[in-house]
């Protein structure tokens, strides 16, 4: 990038971390980078809470009998695990942390379009999180994260309203972030940075933001309707009151299927950045990869009925949803092929972020293809609501999204804090996570086809061997996740200091200091080249 050399200033200059001290300077900050760190801390907290629940679930499932918890408790554990992981970790994760931090840097802006709105979105998120935490301490909720009516609206005796209120509130933070990113991408790009020069991470977050803005209001309305039925006994979903339980499922999945893409698209964006940097190449088929993000965002709204093949939905609706679900898999496949092709004739190195990227490609491929099993209606009859589904979405959400999140965190860590983590430990953790993950979730595919239903506290003895394997895997996975939390925190003080561009990566974010100055760019850079301009760097190296 041409403006790179001009950005160097005296090293004494304060960066965004040293620009202010004290709690006030953090809680009232409008700096997108500081807000990203606020999110990083809160998201890590919720991830840990959700992870703790997962550990308890896996411990209980070590034996077929319900010997560790009561059924009520077990049901609350998997519900709270789902709620925290989906709404308070996976949905915000990459946009709120890496998106907030790097979207403005990547497009050469000094902040997002609406910095105060950005801070507000964190407060809204935190408020929603606190309400849901309060619901947890008050006794928890046992409806499953899917809140199916009429169980949630009439029969459940747990804190449904309170937990739902937390999710309702948090939804607004998604909407605010989405609006902010859309406006930022449209209005704040540096001169010369045309749409077709944008890094793919920006494209992915842009597509994600569209879904957030269009989809989230629907889940808000759905939650509101459950609350109205529960509190005022107006018949909406409960047939005993004259309602329709299938209506709930339509509304819920109209948001929650696109939400799957809210959770995975930003991860795909991170993937493109990492793969380009560590192969020293422009992403193969840049335009196709960018457009496939938009295609996913649009098609993703048309497939929700694939969650309802055995619900009593019309058979003809089922045909349409099944066919469209097959179509939406194509843009995802295109991305996988293009990342793989990017490695062809590259100059590949294998630092930690690249290990996560390779893991992502493998696991996401399995996660995506097992989605075809579920989109095939006849087969879905058998595996619907079994562990096959559990395994499938964990391959996409953990094998895909969490891998990408960790890869991105390791990739951008030196830029965010100016210090490098311990590479050896990081590689050990990456390998542990990969092995632990597969050991945890692969047996669950087999369990599902054998017929073990999900959300079962006690289960048939035939299923025990595979459950023991899964729990063994979960313990490796848990340790793998604990490791980065330790060495990353450790690196903040003791990590080796790095320069502005430790990976020799292309992109405006790597032209400024590490950690970045408070206002990112002294001069707004002018962009004259395509994204991923690694050719010159390679020519200089050889």
């Amino acid at each position: 990038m041409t403006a790179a050399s001009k950005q160097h200033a005296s090293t004494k200059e304060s960066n965004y971390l040293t620009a202010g001290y004290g709690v006030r300077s953090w809680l009232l900050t409008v700096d997108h980078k500081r807000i990203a760190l606020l999110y990083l801390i809160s998201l890590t907290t919720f991830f840990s809470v959700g992870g703790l629940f997962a550990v308890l679930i896996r411990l209980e499932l070590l034996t077929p009998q319900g010997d560790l918890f009561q059924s009520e408790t077990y049901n609350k554990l998997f519900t709270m695990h789902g709620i925290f992981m989906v709404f308070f970790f996976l949905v915000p994760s990459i946009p709120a942390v890496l998106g907030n931090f790097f979207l403005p840097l990547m497009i050469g802006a000094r902040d997002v379009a609406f910095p105060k709105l950005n801070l507000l979105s964190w407060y809204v998120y935190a408020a929603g999180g606190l309400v849901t935490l309060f619901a947890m301490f008050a006794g928890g909720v046992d409806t499953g994260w899917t809140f199916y009516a009429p169980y949630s609206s009439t029969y459940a005796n747990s804190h449904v309203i309170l937990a739902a209120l937390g999710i309702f509130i948090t939804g607004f933070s998604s909407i605010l972030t989405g609006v902010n990113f859309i406006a930022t991408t449209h209005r704040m790009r540096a001169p010369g940075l045309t749409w077709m020069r944008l890094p793919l991470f920006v494209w992915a977050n842009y597509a994600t933001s569209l879904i957030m803005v269009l989809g989230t209001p629907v889940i808000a309305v759905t939650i509101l309707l459950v609350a109205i039925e529960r509190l005022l006994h107006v018949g909406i979903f409960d047939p005993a009151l004259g309602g329709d339980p299938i209506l709930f499922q339509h509304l819920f999945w109209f948001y929650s299927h696109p939400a799957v893409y809210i959770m995975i698209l930003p991860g795909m964006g991170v993937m493109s950045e990492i793969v380009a940097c560590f192969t020293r190449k422009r992403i193969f088929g840049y335009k196709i990869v960018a457009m496939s993000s938009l295609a996913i965002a649009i098609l993703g709204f048309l497939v929700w009925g694939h969650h309802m093949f055995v619900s009593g939905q019309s058979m003809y609706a089922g045909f349409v949803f099944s066919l469209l679900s097959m179509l939406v898999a194509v843009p995802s496949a295109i991305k996988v092929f293009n990342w793989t092709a990017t490695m062809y004739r590259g100059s590949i190195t294998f630092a930690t972020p690249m290990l996560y990227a390779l893991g992502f490609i493998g696991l996401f491929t399995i996660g995506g293809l097992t989605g075809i099993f579920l989109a095939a209606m006849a087969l879905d009859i058998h595996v619907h609501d079994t562990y096959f589904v559990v395994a499938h979405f964990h391959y996409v959400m953990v094998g895909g999204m969490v891998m990408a999140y960790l890869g991105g965190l390791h990739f951008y860590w030196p830029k965010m804090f100016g210090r490098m983590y311990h590479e050896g430990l990081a590689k050990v953790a990456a390998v542990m996570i990969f092995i632990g993950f597969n050991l945890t979730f692969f047996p669950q595919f087999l369990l599902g086809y054998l017929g073990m239903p999900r959300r079962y506290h006690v289960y048939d003895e035939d299923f025990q061997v595979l459950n023991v394997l899964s729990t063994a895997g979960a313990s490796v996975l848990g340790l793998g996740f604990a490791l980065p939390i330790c060495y990353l925190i450790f690196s903040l003080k003791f990590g080796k200091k790095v320069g502005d561009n430790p990976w020799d990566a292309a992109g405006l974010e790597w032209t400024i200091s590490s950690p970045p100055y408070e206002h990112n760019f002294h001069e707004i850079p002018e962009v004259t080249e395509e994204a991923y301009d690694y050719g010159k760097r390679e020519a200089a190296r050889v």
Partner: protein
Amino acid sequence: MFEDFTLFPEAASTVAGGIDRLYFFLIGMTTFAVAGILSALILFSIRYRRRPDRAAQQIDGSVPLEIIWSAIPLALWVFIFGWSAKLYLEIHTTPSEGMTYFVTGKQWMWKIQHPTGQREINTMHVPRGEVVILKLVSEDVIHDFFVPAFRIKQDVLPGTQYTTIWFEATKVGTYDLFCAEYCGTKHSEMIGSVVVMDPADYQAWLDGQPAGQDPVDAGRVLFENLRCVTCHDAGSGQRGPDLSGRFGRPTSLSDGRTVLFDESYVRESILEPKRRLSAGYQPLMPTYTGQVTDTQINQLIAYVKSLANSDVAPKGGDADGGNGQ
């Protein structure tokens, strides 16, 4: 824990084989694709690892390649769609002849009523080689009737509508029945078994049961006791439709639509008579919600159904198959 260890479920219904074939095809596809991607990743990782003397070659992309690797998966997946849709249509289309069982789910048990009136809880005896049609309904929340060995699963909804599922068992044995839709505290204990017997054994088993009241007779008695007869009798005619010869055939509604006069429609008419009114009649009938049990509704349905059989009118099936929506 190892003695019962298995990686593949038993297959004991006529549709299981077809679903397993699709499953193995998809496993083949997945294995092939994952192996392909993995080999490429490993090959490229070794072949194109960084070397001091070789620069990465910048490649923009390739339109022919993009077309190939979009078109091949697309074609394959549309093929899989066609295959699975055909199979789904088969599974979803209920045969017109069969033994109709009524199954009621409630937190947390399954109540089963045989065609001949015998009742069971959580266990369901069926003869091998016969089409068994289940009319499913819930008394409270959504449940789901799942028999892995038969590869069938159907949500069980509360309200006026039955969902329908059918199977034909091919092997004598005892098979797990699970509730697959999360339904509250003891969801995982809402389990039971389906016992498949040779037809003769099944008959012997039936004979050994306390003789259930014949559902048609019981329904006839109810029809009189609940005074249904005053409006729906063949003679009176004016206040409510005559019910003979109606079951299994389309019937027109007062709003101009047509509905299949089936189990769900009878159940709905008893519980919510004003929702879908027969053409030509006033909304005079009161609701019987709370006055009749599910068992009694089943008996009334059996009686109304018998009116169709006693009539010379051609007997219709549950033509739309599926779920009675």
